[in-house]
């Protein structure tokens, strides 16, 4: 018998058998090392159990041993597609804890790199999602072509392509290089053309519609009850975006819309990301036009040897995948007493079984792809 596959008799022998299949942790469509224990009645899924922990890297435990500053590079590796927003959420929590002010220019730089990160994440996600549906190669190549352009910007600014390690408590690490903003303008100006191209290839595509519409439906009530955030929640018709609701940083100054889906299926989750990218481009245009000069870091802020006073703080932002939060408890020491990450990927994954029941395995793959998980963040 093949390991991982077992057959179980149903009580009525005329009704056939239940097949149990273990998908993953090595599976081309599970986005890393994620495992699903699926029980099948014929082709229909009757039970789906997610199995986590194949990438548990002790992030929280390590962070309780190193200094506050030393945790920033580790946050890069949480959701490794969008390191800059992870930095941002962590810095926000520490800033709340120790009461640093963030200069105007630093806020604008944070918004610019944060929205660029959202573009990177959503572009990659759409490529991976369509690849999961069976369009091998081509759409992902289009997506990665655009991703490389933005990664070049990150590299020019921070010195690293993926693990940027750019934000610091009370600001950012270094000022924008000469000519960087012009390069950003070029990339932003060319981006709508890519989106139009991508959209003309995919959104009306018959195969995509057949595979994604009506598949993996997440109801509004369940989404709210399960604590789903980010594009998954908005695709189900709830207009909850922390950039609007919480208005952290300087997002209240920008004019942008929050796209909302109507059906909560895979197609809506796909479209929401396309529309969000167009809104991100709007924010980027406004932020670049209004970028002030001045300091990039609070002169009173201390990075090395930081010992915040005893207390606790929760910093949260609207990361590309949902609400990313860091909860810190300080006892006045050089490292936090408790360091907790609220990962959007993990919490969005909890409803996977409800979305997949009754569907086929191929639909489960499409649903998993549309949730947008990164295992570094799920398992930490």
């Amino acid at each position: 018998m093949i390991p991982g596959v077992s057959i179980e008799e149903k009580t009525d022998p005329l009704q056939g058998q239940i097949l149990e299949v273990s998908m993953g942790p090595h599976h081309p469509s599970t986005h890393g090392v994620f495992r699903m224990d699926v029980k099948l009645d014929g082709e229909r899924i009757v039970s789906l159990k997610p199995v986590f922990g194949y990438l548990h890297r002790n992030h929280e435990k390590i962070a309780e041993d190193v200094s506050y500053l030393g945790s920033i590079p580790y946050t890069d590796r949480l959701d490794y597609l969008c390191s800059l927003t992870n930095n941002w959420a962590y810095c926000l929590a520490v800033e709340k804890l120790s009461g640093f002010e963030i200069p105007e220019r630093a806020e604008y730089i944070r918004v610019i790199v944060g929205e660029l990160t959202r573009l990177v994440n959503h572009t990659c996600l759409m490529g991976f999602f369509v690849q999961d549906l069976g369009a091998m190669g081509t759409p992902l190549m289009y997506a990665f072509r655009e991703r490389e352009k933005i990664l070049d910007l990150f590299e020019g600014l921070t010195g690293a392509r993926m693990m940027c390690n750019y934000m610091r408590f009370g600001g950012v690490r270094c000022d924008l290089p000469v000519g960087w903003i012009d390069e950003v303008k070029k990339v932003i100006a060319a981006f709508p053309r890519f989106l139009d191209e991508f959209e003309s290839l995919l959104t009306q595509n018959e195969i995509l519609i057949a595979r994604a519409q009506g598949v993996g439906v997440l109801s509004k009530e369940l989404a709210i009850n399960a604590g789903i955030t980010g594009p998954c929640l908005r695709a189900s018709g709830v207009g909850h975006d922390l950039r609007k609701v919480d208005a952290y940083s300087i997002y209240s100054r920008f004019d942008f819309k929050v796209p909302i889906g109507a059906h909560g299926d895979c197609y809506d989750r796909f479209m929401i990301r396309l529309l969000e990218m167009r809104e991100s481009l709007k924010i980027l245009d406004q932020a670049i036009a209004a970028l002030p000069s001045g300091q990039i870091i609070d002169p009173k802020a201390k990075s090395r040897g930081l010992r915040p006073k005893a207390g606790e703080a929760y910093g949260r932002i609207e990361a590309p995948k949902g609400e990313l939060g860091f909860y810190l408890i300080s006892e006045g020491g050089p490292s936090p007493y408790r360091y907790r990450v609220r990962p959007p990927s993990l919490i969005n994954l909890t409803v996977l079984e409800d979305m997949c029941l009754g569907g086929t395995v191929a639909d489960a793959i499409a649903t998993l792809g549309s949730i947008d998980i990164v295992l570094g963040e799920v398992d930490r």
Partner: protein
Amino acid sequence: MTEADEKTIQDLRRSGILLTTLEDLYNWGRSNSVWPLQFGLACCAIEMIAASMSRFDIARFGSEVFRPSPRQADLMIVSGTVTKKMAPQVVRLYNQMPEPKYVIAMGACAISGGPFKQGYNVLKGIDRYIPVDVHIPGCPPRPEALLNGLMELQEKIREQNLTGENRPHHLRSDVSGEFPVPEFGACDLEPPSNPAVWTPPEPIREGL
């Protein structure tokens, strides 16, 4: 090969005749069609995917055919952190690959545990269980670094002999390509390393 022979070969090549040995021809073909296993563990996997995309284009080196099944793959790129829960699966996948097979340890985590080395759940280097041919440092290594590692591997394949003492283990009957799969024991992986492929480094004590 002597110098005169080299000259003859060059003369013949100019007139359209190629002289080579079977070994060179075989290794040339093998080194230019190394099929990797489509197998991503963590952050480095994204850079591995980036290397296979249009900008870096790993297809120039004949390795664009990422196979989802280990039965069809020649090369395992261990791209990312190997945790203790994942290590048995990695070794099992390696055992399932047909000979000749090669391993690239991509990134600091696969080499030594990297930034997560102090963690309780992270394997401190995949070379404790399977033989690694090329190590690529970096966190994560750039796609160019992966391409360089692949070229190093191709160099290694071209230098392998088909006969004699130095022949690779897939041509030897006395060496097995299967490696024991570790199991998750009471508090750690058992065995903690495979002594056939890895021995703990001797501590260097200066001034003694």
